[in-house]
């Protein structure tokens, strides 16, 4: 867990998903792809795992926010996709709180999966690879966010 941050369990009200789904989805994809590229560049993502993502398409859907990001991995770079693929190679779905808990290492992905708070569909082996790749990242010590401090 990243010290000092606690993400509570929460669910955004349904109205947000309704509004969110009507907003352009392209910026989420761009932001996520940019972040992933930055992580790959500084060597946070292991090269051998990255190679195995080549040519695959991904969708990340934040259910309660109504946001969808989709991107593909080509030539060692994550590229946002303009349209959400009908059958991506891998699709992650969860509410915002679960994604945040996952990213801050407050919650274990398998626990979220058992509790049905995280759904992974598509190529299961690819899903496992991505999950394990995220787990193996040694995050640099982030400056503490005083906003969230316990």
């Amino acid at each position, binding site marked *: 867990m990243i010290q000092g941050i606690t993400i509570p369990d929460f669910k955004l009200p349904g109205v947000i998903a309704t509004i969110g789904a009507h907003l352009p989805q392209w910026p989420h994809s761009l932001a996520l792809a940019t972040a992933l590229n930055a992580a790959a560049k500084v060597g946070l993502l292991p090269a051998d*795992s990255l190679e195995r993502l080549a040519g695959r398409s991904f969708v990340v859907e934040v259910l309660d926010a109504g946001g969808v990001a989709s991107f593909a991995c080509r030539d060692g770079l994550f590229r946002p996709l303009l349209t959400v693929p009908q059958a991506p190679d891998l699709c992650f779905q969860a509410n915002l709180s679960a994604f945040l808990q996952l990213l801050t290492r407050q919650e*274990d992905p*398998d*626990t979220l999966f058992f*509790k049905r708070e995280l759904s992974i569909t598509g190529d299961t*082996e690819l899903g*496992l690879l991505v999950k394990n790749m995220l787990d*193996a990242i040694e995050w640099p010590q982030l400056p503490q966010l005083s906003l969230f401090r316990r």
Partner: protein
Amino acid sequence: MAARKIPQLICPAGSLPALKAAVDHGADAVYLGYRNETNARNFAGLNFDQRAMVEGVRYAQTRHRQVLMAINTFAQPGRFADWQRAVDGAADLGVDAVILADVGLLDDSSRRHPDLRLHLSVQGSATNYEAINFAHREFGVRRAVLPRVLTLAQVETVVRNTPVEIEVFGFGSLCVMNEGRCWLSSYATGESPNTVGACSPAKFVQWQKSPDGMATRLNGILIDCFAAAEPAGYPTLCKGRFEVQGETYYALEEPTSLNVLEILPEIARIGVAAIKVEGRQRSPTYVAQVTRTLRAALDELARGEQRFSVRPAWQAELARLAEGSQVTLGAYSRPWR
């Protein structure tokens, strides 16, 4: 009061961050493996390459914790050298022990690395003291990990009748009491933990969403269907729900995790040397959470058995992390026996 001897806490490390989490939260030893078929947790993206291995061993050992390397699959015909190389690598790295299952590899390693400490893996499926004493006599095995099939009384009988240290499982997903002998995964997919290093390999698993919930298939075989908010488990055949004589239920095993907190004092009293946490496939977060909880319980036990009581907070934390969100004493307690 003199501190009593309590079992060592052995924790899983599927990645470098998980290893560090285990060490930082109080593991006495971590177990890990290479990224190949010599490892019974050979999953995509998991485990250690050489660089991570070197750093992991250094991280643990400079903090006076042990590193145990699991080379716990069965050497496949014509490729024995791959398994030998893994053992040689472990010896070069200076790990504290290797955990082996294959009798041929045990024999070979005992000859080529007489100073390397050998542990008998749970995959070796030694459930009685004769089998363990055989491994001791022939290969100099110093510790055996017992399969999760024995009652506490049976574990005690084993401990009393062998000079070999005994390690038992303390927490984690259950492998349906047939470690090293299970054919379910092989039957469904042609691959199994003993051969390719994974039960129900992910490439055969499909999670299908439908309006009624989520169906799980293993190589096309429907093994379970979960309603919308129903807790799920791993996609192994043993944890599937099947129709038997008109009734659909968990015919082999429920998706649940073993948890020995309640019987920790008995485990220590009968002389078990170490308690193992399952879960190299899980994240650093899980490792930190389980290690921290069991460390607290073992430390409390070390202060005196009379004072030991299971704190509700420990149970709550472990139940939350469990597969299917429920825990069991598994075979340790079999009142119907």
